[in-house]
């Protein structure tokens, strides 16, 4: 291990949070500026990480391993691969943007807000880099609570309800995951090696029944986070009640943890059970796509509308992953980043207009184009990106997903395409009612357009939206090798079953090792 770059990226926001908490409360510009400046550090460090990242390799890179609790086999081990690379960058990119965007939104207890946002960033980064199950679980829970405080302190009128609902849903899911995690580790320990390292745990001997149960224990925890139907009901409440900064982080990164969890844990650790679960996962994804879009249509509240659109968009992500081919899965990973950018941008812009009018009701607006042209044009770009207009980022992801899904399950792709049309429908309807037409409300005539600070917060997001839409190759190139590694793993597991031996130990990453372990008979019941 040489320079601990990933550790620095992960822990620098925590250090920044501690620094901010020691600063004076008043004037509020001190914690604001300090938080923004300090949030740039992890971003710059993650650019260094991007430069050092070898895009041709599909396994974990920049790894660090330090013993932590040897009696339990717990190591502080972290690393990055194509699944987490862009999500890490998205996290470090969105945090300064959010802090900048929140300068007028958050007026009281500013210092605490900045503290929790930075703490949240550390938690999210930790969950993305952790390659030890224990460490991952720690960060998984750790990122929950800053978000609860952000929703509960600075949220809307029903903030306490939303915060509690958010916690109970997530805790119930992670509780099951904890038992499954320990069961897995203990089963693996029967070979004599006590370890929480996920790469080591990939090789655990599990019967088919065990695999299925463990897969679902993990999958439900992740499905709650995604969120997939029927576990999605916390999301509209949390999104609607959270302040802008909370909504952006929630939509941009926290939701991705669910899909990321599938890629990093549920699929590679339980490859057979994961593949056999496809009718459920694909069915629920497609149902989520259509349901989210249908429910988004009549929403009177802009934020709630975007929240339901997230249910729909995350359905696409899961559909892409579950296509189990290179195109679809790459599209799914890419779409996670796209959704983070476009939905993040939407929430930021809605937050700006909310700062001015203190309402998010669509019916309260209309004709904004003539009053606030800068806002309206930026809003248009982000809306189109969310719809998936060719030339912007959303198109690339959705296209890859649908292409992959069509190859795997044509019927699912066909239904999902309806979701794309519906998506264009509700987003454009909202845009039309807010921006076009005559100015119906007298108060709207005197609205201020975006300030330079606000423009500075949104423009980076727009730049990324256009860049990823026009030239997505550098992004895709760094995702694909990791996708290939996972797909090979899944294929090998599937092939071992076709040879008539479903109870065979799950293949390791290395082909030769697999032959060695494959000959060991596994006790246990038949599938």
């Amino acid at each position: 291990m040489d320079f601990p770059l990933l550790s620095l990226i992960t822990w620098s926001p925590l250090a920044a949070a501690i620094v901010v908490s020691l600063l004076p409360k008043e004037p509020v510009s001190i914690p604001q500026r300090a938080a923004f400046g300090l949030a740039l550090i992890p971003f710059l460090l993650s650019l260094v990480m991007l430069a050092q990242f070898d895009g041709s390799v599909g396994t974990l890179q920049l790894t660090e391993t330090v013993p932590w609790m040897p009696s339990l086999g717990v190591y502080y081990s972290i690393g990055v691969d194509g699944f987490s690379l862009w999500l890490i960058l998205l996290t470090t990119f969105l945090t300064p943007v959010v802090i900048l965007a929140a300068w007028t939104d958050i007026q009281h207890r500013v210092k605490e807000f900045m503290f929790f946002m930075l703490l949240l960033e550390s938690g999210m980064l930790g969950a993305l880099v952790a390659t030890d199950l224990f460490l991952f679980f720690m960060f998984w829970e750790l990122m929950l609570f800053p978000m609860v405080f952000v929703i509960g302190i600075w949220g809307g009128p029903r903030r306490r309800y939303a915060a509690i609902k958010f916690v109970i849903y997530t805790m119930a899911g992670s509780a099951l995951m904890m038992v499954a995690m320990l069961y897995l580790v203990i089963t693996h320990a029967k070979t004599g090696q006590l370890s929480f390292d996920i790469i080591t745990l990939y090789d655990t001997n599990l019967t088919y029944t065990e695999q299925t149960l463990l897969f679902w224990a993990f999958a439900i925890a992740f499905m709650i986070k995604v969120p997939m139907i029927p576990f999605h009901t916390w999301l509209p409440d949390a999104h609607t009640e959270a302040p802008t900064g909370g909504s952006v982080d929630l939509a941009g990164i926290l939701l991705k943890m669910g899909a990321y969890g599938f890629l990093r844990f549920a699929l590679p650790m339980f490859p057979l059970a994961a593949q056999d679960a496809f009718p459920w996962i694909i069915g629920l994804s497609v149902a989520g796509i259509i349901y989210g879009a249908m429910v988004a249509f009549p929403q009177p509240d802009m934020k709630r509308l975007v929240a339901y659109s997230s249910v729909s968009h995350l359905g696409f992500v899961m559909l892409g992953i579950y296509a189990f081919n290179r195109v679809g899965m790459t599209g799914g990973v890419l779409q996670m980043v796209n959704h983070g950018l476009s939905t993040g941008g939407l929430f930021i812009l809605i937050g700006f207009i909310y700062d001015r009018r203190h309402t998010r009701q669509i019916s309260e607006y209309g004709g904004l184009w003539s009053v606030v042209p800068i806002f309206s044009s930026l809003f248009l770009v982000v809306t189109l990106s969310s719809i998936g207009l060719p030339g912007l980022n959303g198109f690339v992801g959705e296209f890859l997903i649908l292409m992959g899904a069509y190859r795997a399950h044509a019927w699912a792709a066909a239904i999902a395409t309806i979701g794309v049309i519906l998506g264009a429908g509700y987003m454009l309807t909202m845009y039309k009612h807010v921006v076009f037409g005559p100015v119906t409300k007298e108060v709207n005539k005197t609205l201020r357009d975006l300030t330079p600070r606000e423009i500075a917060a949104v423009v980076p997001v727009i730049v990324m939206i256009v860049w990823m839409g026009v030239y997505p190759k550098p992004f895709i190139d760094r995702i694909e090798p990791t996708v290939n590694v996972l797909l090979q793993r899944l294929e090998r597991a599937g092939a071992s079953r076709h040879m008539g031996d479903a109870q065979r130990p799950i293949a390791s990453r290395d082909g030769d090792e697999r032959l060695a372990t494959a000959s060991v008979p596994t006790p246990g019941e038949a599938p």
Partner: protein
Amino acid sequence: MIEVVFTAAEARAITPLLIVAVVAMISLVYEAFADDATTDPGRAVWLCLAGIGGGLVASVVLWENGQSAFGGTFALDGVAAFTNVVCLLAAGLSLMMAPAYLARIGVRAREFYPLVLFAAAGMMVMGSARDLIVLFLGIEIMSIAAYVLAGCHRTDRASGEAALKYFLLGAFATGFLLYGIAILFGATGSTAYTAIAAALPQAPPLVVLGGVALLIVALGFKVSAVPFHFWAPDVYQGAPTSVTALMAVGIKAAAVVGFARLFLTVFPSLHDEWAMLLWWLSVLTMTVGNVVAIAQNNVKRMLAYSSIAHAGYLLAAIVAGTPRGGGAVLFYLLAYAFMNLGAFAVVISLGRRGEANEQFSDYAGLASRRPLIAAAMVLFMLSLTGIPPLVGFVGKLYLIEAIVQAGYVWLAVIMVLNSAISAYYYLRLIIEMYMRDPAGEAVAMEPAPLLIVCLLVATVGTIFFGIFPDAPLDFARQSFLALR
């Protein structure tokens, strides 16, 4: 007949207990002759704290696996040393909370401090007991002190009610315990753990099971397991808060260790039978504790039900019946001591003369009034919920690991679901403190210096052992392995 030979090794084994008990007596005599008007009550506190410190140091220095006194009936092995540390920690921290608190509620009972020491001595005996009679002695020494402590706020009706309730039901439990001991003695011809274990194969099984069931009832009362828990909420709420802290942590710890040592060393051959009984007891205890805690509006009462729920978690690890389970129990008791004593210290620090401020609504907006105390309370609540990287999480993880390892996967699932339920009421307090505006005017409250020390110890313990749990956990596991 037990041959009592007193050697140097045996003297070592009883030294920690002797220190605590002798200091308790000295302080009792000192208090009796001290002049109320002129002597500083602080002196008694320091004397008693010194006794506790001496007991702690002696336990840590003198323990040795297999070391025992009085014909092998009283051990100072790893398990006993660990229990001593947890119980003396609880006693010490409750002592530190007490002076300012007692002055505030108007209790001038000088016997308070020595009684805490006597209770601690009883707990130490329970952790060391390797004979049913010694276990009985420990329970009685501890309980009688605790009955008096619960009622030491003589002008308060709730305190009196608590003492009476605790005493009456405690007396019942004692009856069950003695009856169980008598039956086991009849069946096996001995009260010593080793002798009972050796005689079990020849003993009439039904009689033995009857005795075991009676012991479970008696010990279940002390650990406040459902359905023997009805005394706990009233007693915990009515007793002075520093006494509640001692009961919730120290008494529970001693009783759980007594339970674990008895069942893991004497009755492993009957594991299938008692494990089934305890399985239900544990599931009932954690579920009832958590579900009822949701409905509470008084923080002390909420903590009482939460402590019932935690007793359920601990029983679950005893169900596992393995040394690993025993080790996890010991570690969890240490974790529980830090986080729960911290929570009680916060409860005490918010009271004022004439106002207990124990309702949830009294905590509204605490974060803006006293940010540091509120932050500490958040830590304790999150740790009780089991959120990493705090000590409560690691403790729970070890419990679940031991349970899953012993094959009780469903018990583990019920336990984690329970811990998700518990998130609701712990979080409610956090929401009161951080997400509501203060109801009344902001009043400056200055906690006493000793209370601040107490909060600091609890906070540091909650964080430090959450991140570095390895040393105490290893010690706890090795101690239980050495019992076999």
